[in-house]
């Protein structure tokens, strides 16, 4: 099955005529994603590779029935782009942008509280249900259709894990990049619930890192509600405190968010921790075998 995106997903790309938007739209179309429209204010009524471009998200939704949006818009305008997509009634918004001010994301999260939209990101490589739909920048060819759900705060580290699994013949149901920022849309706990209820997902891989308490929340949720196994890798055991390690959300501050504590908390909840990033794929296989 998969979660959030599948063969029925109809995507509008906000920022379709920009450098990033244009390049990745072509890649998504090549993968088989149904891109039904694009939005670039001022370029409405143009076409991009035969795809209609609109001035506003509302116009795009009215004309195409798009139910998902990919946002390739620079940081000063990205939060506004998310708000526009939510207001237009888009079901799933995927915001790829890195560098959105945190206070803007607080406004976005607050606005979204009573809406039916789910937000993935920002600062994410996107979401892919292999064989069905890819919304984002990940290389489609490393993925394989299967039954492992992946939730990650990272980009290339996710590709590493996917590659390890695919090379061992283990496919993925859906891979979700929740992003590297401190304030994001869907969190681990939201996706764990979806994966637990997805009949085609047998196990979940969590790729976490320092900063915040999202992994600890996931451990709590797992203990209380989940039957499917989780394998987790937490990056940043060697990260020094107080420094932002690339991602805006990857910072140990006020003594909170270090990798060792996350690892201890997850292990205590019954989640299998992988110590070396080179062994994630292998560990997932042995955990699935144990559960069968």
């Amino acid at each position, binding site marked *: 099955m998969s979660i959030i995106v599948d063969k029925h997903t109809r995507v509008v790309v906000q920022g379709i005529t920009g450098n990033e938007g244009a390049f990745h739209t072509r890649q998504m179309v090549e993968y088989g994603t149904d891109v039904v429209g694009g939005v670039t204010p001022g370029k409405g009524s143009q076409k991009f590779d035969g795809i209609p471009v609109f001035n506003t998200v509302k116009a795009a939704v009215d004309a195409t029935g798009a139910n998902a949006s990919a946002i390739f818009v620079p*940081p*000063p305008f990205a939060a506004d782009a998310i708000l526009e997509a939510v207001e237009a009634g888009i079901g799933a918004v995927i915001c790829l942008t890195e*560098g959105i*001010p*945190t*206070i803007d*994301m*607080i*406004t976005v*999260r*607050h606005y979204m509280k009573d809406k039916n939209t789910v937000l993935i990101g920002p600062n994410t*490589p996107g979401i892919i249900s292999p064989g069905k739909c890819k919304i984002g*920048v*990940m*290389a489609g060819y*490393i993925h394989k259709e299967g039954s492992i759900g992946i939730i*990650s*705060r*990272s*980009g*290339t*580290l*996710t*590709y*590493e894990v996917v*590659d*390890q699994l695919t090379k061992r013949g283990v496919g993925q149901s859906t891979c979700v990049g929740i992003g*590297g920022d*401190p*304030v994001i849309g869907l969190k681990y706990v939201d996706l764990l619930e979806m994966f637990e209820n997805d009949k085609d997902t047998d196990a979940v891989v969590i*790729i976490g*890192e*320092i900063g*915040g*308490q*999202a992994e600890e*929340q996931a451990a709590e949720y797992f203990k209380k509600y989940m039957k499917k196994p989780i394998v987790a*890798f937490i*990056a*940043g*055991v*060697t*990260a*020094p405190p107080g*420094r*932002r*390690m*690339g*991602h*805006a*959300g*990857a910072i140990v501050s*006020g*003594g909170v968010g270090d*990798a060792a504590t996350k690892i201890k908390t997850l292990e205590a909840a019954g989640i299998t921790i992988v*110590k*070396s*990033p*080179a*062994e994630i794929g292998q560990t997932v296989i042995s955990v699935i075998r144990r559960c069968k």
Partner: protein
Amino acid sequence: MKIHEFQAKQLFNSYNIPTPKGQVVTSAEEIPQAIKNAGTFPLVLKAQVHAGGRGKGGGIKIVNSVEEAVHVSSKLLRKTLFTPQTGEEGKPVNHLVIEEVLHVAKEIYLGITLDRIKACITVLASSEGGMEIEKIAADSPEKLFIENVDPSIGLRPFQANRIFFSLGLDPSLSRKMSGIILNLYRLFIDKDCSLAEINPLVVTEGGDLIALDAKINVDDNALYRHPDIASLRDLGQENSLEVQASRYNLNYIKLKGNVGCMVNGAGLAMATMDLIKHVGAAPANFLDVGGGATSQMVTEGLKILLSDSDVKVIFINIFGGILRCDVLAKGVVEAARQLDIKLPMIIRLEGTNVELGRQIFAESGLTFTVASGMGDAAEKVAEALKGGSYEVTNIRS
């Protein structure tokens, strides 16, 4: 981005938050004139560095005469200050504040920060001022008062009032305190802060409220819309290699170790550092070249890794997505030719254009060790370290 105490106090003043009388100087010669603005002795000299623990490091000194002030400031300025929080390299002192000494009746903690889980701005206050907030939260959580801000209405006066009455202060201070709380909040949202802290906020014997210390961190992602704040950046407080890297849009953080690493992607970069430790070595740095890296950026990144004399082995771990393996390979080969690299280099490539990348390395005529996966790469790194004169067992992790 961090700013100095004196810069934060200037911001406080522009938001009507009172600070002690004082002045900042950059040389001991300016001290006699500055004293006129600070008031009568005793006065306090405070070294301005982007690190806490200054008192413990001898960076905060009471002085009782002009001569003493000049003497102490000449000992502090243009020298390196070492505190428990500066790390072993310490921080250079290029600015010094000379300030009046307050007659303290009570010390309050007041701070504004972000709650990632609730996705809101949060105000923290405690009657246990002067202590680290983490210590208050751990030792006496009942003395920590938290007020969350609803984005639709902002921080309201009734909330400032609630904070005030949690602190056990004399009711006559209510108006002044509420004013400071609301003004600090306005500063926080106006300037896109990630932290705005007054610790301690002092109640003087005379009944005034004064911010004795000031700490402001600004969201790096928001600097584009605050050129005034961005101009306050003090490169002297940052590591010189890190500053050099940022000029090339490379994300580099210096650590202490013997394996220099270059990776694309922050998560993979952290995982690579962890992997290096896992095999008994020590990562010398964090370096994320990012998806948009050009061959020139890769060359500059390698130069920076090589300027760290502790580095004995170079480990390049790339999973090409947006970054193409051939672009990376060209940059590495170019750097190796320019710099005549003598250190062992272990390279692991995967992803976009991987075959082309491997071909470029094979045809370069230079000596690289190409690994097949992360596990294989890590073993080769450990091997390369054994082969040199640097023993793996001597590494401090």
